[in-house]
């Protein structure tokens, strides 16, 4: 298992694309917080401080696509054959990818958090106020944001293993975020909608983009997301072990 993880590390550290994708996270966080302030967010309102820090959770959209690259990217470039020749135990390959990509997702979430704190502190100072990290559950927001980055990296690995076609997998993921979950939520009604993965992640990272939905408590959102990750993982294992690689 350690050799499999070692191999996944080597794969990831010898190409640039996935890192450029992750690097976009902190940039988006910085831009998002600046936009919030510039568009007239009242920095003396503790709610606005929470909203600023909650941008960390939004960067999880990037770790989702990052995760999709793990398996679907290998199909895209035809490297999956060589991977299974080096590591015929496919279950171990998926497990190693989950471990390595979740870890990278955590690192990305931490960098995004540091960026969020630094940028928020800078704006608050520039406006003659001071960032109060102890106030308004700031730590919970940041911790939830990092957790969302990890969970979506893992879910991404599984989505890529299930769909395998890189463009298709990314299209499915983005369509779900932008369109399908919102429509499904409306059809299901607010009571059920909050159990859907992105509403659950909003609860987890306290981004509260959807005021119409009564979100789960943070811990509940986290548990629901862990449940989705576990279900996707089970499905990814079953299909990966059975399928022919042609």
């Amino acid at each position, binding site marked *: 298992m350690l*050799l*499999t993880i*070692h*191999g996944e590390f*080597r*794969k990831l550290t*010898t*190409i*640039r*694309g996935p890192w450029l994708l992750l690097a976009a996270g902190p940039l988006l966080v910085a831009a998002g917080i600046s936009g919030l302030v510039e568009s007239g967010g009242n920095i003396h309102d503790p709610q606005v401080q929470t909203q600023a820090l909650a941008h960390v959770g939004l960067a999880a959209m990037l770790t989702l696509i990052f995760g999709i690259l793990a398996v679907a*990217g290998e199909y895209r*470039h*035809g*490297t999956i*054959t*060589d991977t*299974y*020749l*080096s*590591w*015929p*135990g496919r279950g171990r390959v998926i497990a190693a990818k989950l471990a390595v990509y979740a870890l990278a997702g955590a690192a990305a979430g931490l960098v995004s958090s540091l960026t969020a704190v630094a940028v928020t502190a800078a704006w608050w100072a520039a406006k003659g106020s001071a960032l109060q990290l102890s106030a308004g559950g700031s730590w919970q927001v940041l911790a939830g944001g990092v957790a969302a980055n990890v969970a979506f990296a893992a879910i991404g690995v599984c989505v890529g293993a299930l769909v395998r076609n890189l463009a298709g997998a990314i299209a499915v993921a983005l369509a779900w975020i932008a369109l399908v979950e919102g429509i499904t939520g409306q059809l299901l009604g607010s009571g059920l909608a909050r159990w859907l993965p992105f509403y659950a992640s909003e609860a987890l990272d306290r981004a509260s983009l959807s005021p119409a939905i009564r979100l789960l408590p943070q811990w509940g959102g986290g548990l629901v997301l862990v449940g989705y990750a576990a279900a996707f993982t089970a499905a990814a294992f079953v299909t990966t072990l*059975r399928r*022919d*690689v*042609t």
Partner: protein
Amino acid sequence: MTEVEVRGLTKTFGRVTAVAGLSFTAPAGKVTGFLGPNGSGKTTTFRAVLGLVRPSAGEALIGGVPYRHLARPRRSVGALLDATGCHPGRRARDHLRVLAAGDGIPDRRVDEVLRQVDLASAGTRRVRGFSLGMRQRLGLAAALLGDPPVLLLDEPANGLDPAGVAWLRGLLRRLASEGRTVVVASHLLSEVAQTADQVVIVSAGRLRFAGSLGEIGQTDNALESAFLKLTMAPD
């Protein structure tokens, strides 16, 4: 002695039967030419031997063991498949280092095979800029990486220049003379006539001939006419 043994192998994809009850043995110390028209099931057979596709019936064994049960696969079998790819943004040497990680093969060996396929100076270049021939050499380097006793090569001469083809011929002969099992799928009958000790001919997923080249006749023409006669025979 590590031989490759295919026993009653059948593989269907939906309603298409790619391989139908195929059996043959590729012995150690010999080059076995694996011949057949396009779509005759050669690639599917290779993929079944390598554990990439699951046989519908029968089995494929390497030294008596299915590929997925090999403890150190890269050190047991080297394979070059047509669809094997490289990440365009990865450097050639890193590509091999990734594959080497599975069996804990040292970087020293990676540099050795790069020299062997004449890519030593291109090792630090990203694969994006490689020609077809260079990619083929990189694929051969990957097959040789674990110094394996068994080699399965699908159209290894693809994209190689005349000097490369001559070099490959010598390499295959030498690998067999070292006691390794070498199986080469190819459409280049004249190349096969020059390098193979025995041939396995398939058509429509079925075995048409298995035996020494001597039984067919060692000349290019003899192999070609036998191939055409065997593969165009009605079912």
